[in-house]
């Protein structure tokens, strides 16, 4: 390849053929300012800041894309060039939010630095009127479209350097901008969080989100060392450098506690070496009416107490307890093992839910403890994602599928076929997974996070359910006409197991028993939804709505003209629940009725959102109950808008860690709320009221009473109905 002779700023230089004027100048110590050009990316010449004056040329040329030619005479700093460059920078600055995030954080925004060098303080041009907006959907990278100068460095970084092909251009002219995939929010796109775009960006359009101000205990991990691990290999070193405080290596000795159930945290753990035991340490004591007696005496007392046969038929199928780990815990013996390659604590880390289980090192262990930005990076890594998905398919998919009532009795063949057909998909908070009226194309099983199922309603949105890990949705649409009957929205970071419609239909055709049970379930669900809508549409009073009573399925109502304030109801409640009352004779008054502070079994049970072990749930008969594996984190009590869930300390016996083989009394918290005395014939508060003043009623029934004289016996009827 022959050399080319040219003159730059009066200096005779020789460069290889094909060299750009920009490189020719640089190679000879002449700096040309630029914004869109980077040495490791293909030059595109979009910013035009690197313009140079080539003698005998009609217009100024962008030096990054103009190849050097023989005998060319180039001026990089002529008056004309300076004026043009200044105007260009001024125009870019007119739309630039100065100081941008990068300038604020590290004082090195390339555009603002250039503007300062050019002596531009206040651009002469008017600012853009319509904002281009921000995108904060990614956990690790903040996108500020306002600060973007459309230099395309991020796009080339993503496509040419990392070959991820996520970034591109959107819009035209004034509305042009960068876009992720098909103009999705960054967090929802296929972005793998490698950080290359952020590292490439010359301004504050793509910046590193600051790590939560948490100092992680443990051994800091070198960027080089991190990059040796497969799932960090394709991540930009600069980006890892920026996030290196967000991951530490932890060593746990055998027997040491890694995290405790119920504790709040913000980190996830990835096991590098060793085995860890995950378990529920809180004893499964029912904070409830006592269990059934056996034998003659037991039967006699059961009869005396009016206990009925176990009516929780649906609980008979419960075999596992969902936790925030790649495995579920067996109900009878809630202990499981985790090993190298297992990631746990994702929900705590991503959505700050309490820890769902206690993890103890079964052998000496080495783990990475990480904050959410690092977790997001590795979750987006294709290698690790594939590994986690494989783990999930191998260890938890069976349990999850079998936790769906209609799949509970399936044979292994069905599960095995399904195992390879499912797809794992992720959504971030607020994403609509499916909209009412859309074509039903999939059935979903929730692996992580919470989903809200709702229907639009003239008075607002009616929430049909909150579904957590192990929950499922989409079957009604697939079987009942092909369109979605409700809207499903991600309440936080969620991961779903998606079974496509074709696979689903193929499965139900092959297994007719599944189809039959699904059809029955669909009918039941549709009936329940109709009832809820009927309840919602027949509520006439504003106060009823504003007090949230519309949400109630069952209210404890006191007729204050009959009530002698003897508190027999409160004592009966305490008597039925280990001495802890679950109602307080105080609350909102409607006419002569008092709606007591007691669980209303809401149709929008906000209390159920976030339970890390899924112990608060709605029974098929619609009442909300707290199961005995409650770990006492208190999230449901915090979420209940009516203060009807209380945390209560219970003294239980546990193995003494110091004196092995002995037990010690420890105080554990459990959430308590009215369970309608489910194993008694009638709620104790109602049964024990000597004055016929306490009643459990449906809201409709209640409002028929208000302002109208009580029909004899109507209260009993209403009470029995609930």
């Amino acid at each position, binding site marked *: 390849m022959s050399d080319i002779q040219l003159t730059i700023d009066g200096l005779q230089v020789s460069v290889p053929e094909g060299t750009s004027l920009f490189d020719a100048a640089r190679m000879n110590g002449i700096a040309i300012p630029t914004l869109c050009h980077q040495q490791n990316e293909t030059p595109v010449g979009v910013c035009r800041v690197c313009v140079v004056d080539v003698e005998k040329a009609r217009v100024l040329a962008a030096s990054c894309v103009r190849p050097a030619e023989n005998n060319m005479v180039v001026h990089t700093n002529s008056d004309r060039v300076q004026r043009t460059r200044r105007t260009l920078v001024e125009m870019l600055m007119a739309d630039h939010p100065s100081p941008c995030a990068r300038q604020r954080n590290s004082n090195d925004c390339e555009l603002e630095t250039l503007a300062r060098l050019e002596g531009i303080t206040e651009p002469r041009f008017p600012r853009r009127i319509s904002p281009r907006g921000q995108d904060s959907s990614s956990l690790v990278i903040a996108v500020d479209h306002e600060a973007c100068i459309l230099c395309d460095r991020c796009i080339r970084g993503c496509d040419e350097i990392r070959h991820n092909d996520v970034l591109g251009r959107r819009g035209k002219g004034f509305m042009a901008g960068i876009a992720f995939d098909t103009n999705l929010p960054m967090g929802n796109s296929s972005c793998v969080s490698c950080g290359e775009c952020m590292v490439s960006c010359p301004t504050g359009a793509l910046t590193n989100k600051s790590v939560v101000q948490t100092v992680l205990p443990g051994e800091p991990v070198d960027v080089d060392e991190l990059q040796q691990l497969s799932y960090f290999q394709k991540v930009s070193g600069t980006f890892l450098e920026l996030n290196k405080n967000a991951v530490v290596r932890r060593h746990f000795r055998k027997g040491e506690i890694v995290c405790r159930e119920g504790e709040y945290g913000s980190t996830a753990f990835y096991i590098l070496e060793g085995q860890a035991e995950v378990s529920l340490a809180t004893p499964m004591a029912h904070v409830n009416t006592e269990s059934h007696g056996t034998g003659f005496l037991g039967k006699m007392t059961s*009869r*005396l*107490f*009016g206990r009925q046969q176990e009516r929780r038929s649906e609980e008979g199928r419960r075999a596992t307890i969902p936790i925030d780990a790649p495995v579920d815990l067996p109900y009878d013996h809630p202990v499981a093992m985790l090993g190298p390659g297992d990631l746990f604590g994702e929900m705590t880390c991503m959505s700050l839910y309490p820890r769902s289980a206690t993890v103890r090192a079964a052998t000496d262990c080495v783990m990475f403890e990480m904050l959410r930005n690092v977790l997001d990076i590795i979750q987006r890594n294709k290698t690790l994602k594939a590994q986690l998905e494989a783990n999930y398919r191998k260890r938890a998919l069976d349990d999850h599928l079998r936790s769906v009532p209609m799949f509970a009795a399936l044979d292994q063949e069905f599960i095995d076929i399904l195992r390879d057909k499912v797809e794992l998909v992720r959504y971030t908070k607020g994403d609509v997974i499916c909209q009412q009226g859309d074509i039903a194309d999939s059935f979903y099983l929730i692996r992580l996070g919470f989903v809200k199922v709702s229907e639009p309603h003239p008075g607002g949105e009616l929430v049909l359910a909150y579904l957590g890990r192990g929950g499922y949705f989409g079957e009604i649409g697939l079987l009942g006409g092909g369109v979605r009957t409700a809207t499903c929205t991600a309440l936080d970071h969620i991961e779903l197991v998606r079974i496509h419609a074709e696979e689903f239909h193929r499965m139900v055709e092959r297994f007719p028993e599944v189809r039959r049970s699904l059809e029955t379930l669909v009918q039941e669900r549709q009936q329940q939804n109709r009832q809820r809508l009927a309840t919602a549409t027949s509520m006439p009073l504003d106060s009823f709505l504003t007090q949230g009573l519309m949400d109630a399925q069952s209210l404890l109502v006191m007729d*204050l*003209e*009959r*009530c*002698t*304030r*003897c508190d*027999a109801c409160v*004592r*009966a409640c305490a*008597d*039925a629940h280990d001495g802890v009352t679950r109602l*307080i*004779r*105080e609350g909102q*008054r409607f006419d*002569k009725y008092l709606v007591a502070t007691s669980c209303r079994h809401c149709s929008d049970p906000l209390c159920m959102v976030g339970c890390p072990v899924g112990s608060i749930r709605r029974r098929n008969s619609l009442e909300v109950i707290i199961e005995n594996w409650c770990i006492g984190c208190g999230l449901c009590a915090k979420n209940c808008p009516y203060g009807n869930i209380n945390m209560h300390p219970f003294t239980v016996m546990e193995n003494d860690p110091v004196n092995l083989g002995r037990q010690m009394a420890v105080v554990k918290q459990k959430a308590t709320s009215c369970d309608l005395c489910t194993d*008694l*014939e009638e709620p*104790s508060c109602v*049964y*024990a*009221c*000597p*004055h*016929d003043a306490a009643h459990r009623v449906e809201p409709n029934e209640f409002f028929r009473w208000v302002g109208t004289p009580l029909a*004899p*016996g109507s209260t009993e009827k209403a009470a029995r109905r609930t």
Partner: protein
Amino acid sequence: MRIDQTHRPWVIATVALAIVSTVAYVVYAVEAPAGPRGGSAMGLTFGIVGYGLMLYAGLLGARKRVPTWRIGRAQTWMRGHLWLGLLSLLLILFHGGFAFRGPLTLVLMLLFFIVIGSGILGAAIQHYVPSLMTSRVPLETIYEEIPHVRAQLREEADQLAAAICGPLNGSTEEQTQSVLVEIEHDDRERFREVYLRKVRPYLANPETQGNELGDPLRSGETFEALRRLLAEPVHGVLDDLENICEEEQQLSRQIRIYRWLHAWLLVHVPLSIALLVLGAIHAVMALRY
């Protein structure tokens, strides 16, 4: 318990039993050569059934102690207690032939009348007074919580007053520095004086008789006069203080009504126990001797 049409089956049953007993008693009284006597077969029958009904009525207290036992709804027990307890008086009168011979019998009958009388009074109170409580105490709270609510009200009132005249126990400088509502110095001093002299003592001892703020009418007049006396910016705080005083009045009213609702039990319950014990002694003595 409200005695309404839902009690009709009990009333009918009680009246029917009373008629049957009365007919039996009249026949027995007419035909008995020595007149009706407690020791006769018929007299003993009336006594045993009457005492049985008294015992049943007395067991209501025990039943309340085991509220979750499924041995009949509490309201059924209460209705039985009311109507069968009343019937027992008639049967015991038939048992003794309306004669009270001997001191024990006399005491027993006296106790019985008091127990029945206090019971009827209690039933009447529990019929009417809950409505009174509902209408006259809209801000009713749990009875046991009243002292706590009152402490909160006092604290709230002190905070309101401090917004006008600074810390109530602070120095003059502190008082001036920490006020939130700007008014004239004289007005501030006047407000302080009124608060410390009238409002605070009332909130500290709301049950003291004769306090003008404890009376709804006089309290209203007092606050109206204060509004005329003090500058406009203070009126909002005065409204809040008036509301606090009104809540205090309601709490005092709740205490009074609550005592009415339950005070009769102080007579009814111990005397009922005494009656049952003495009744048992009477039965043993009468049968043995």
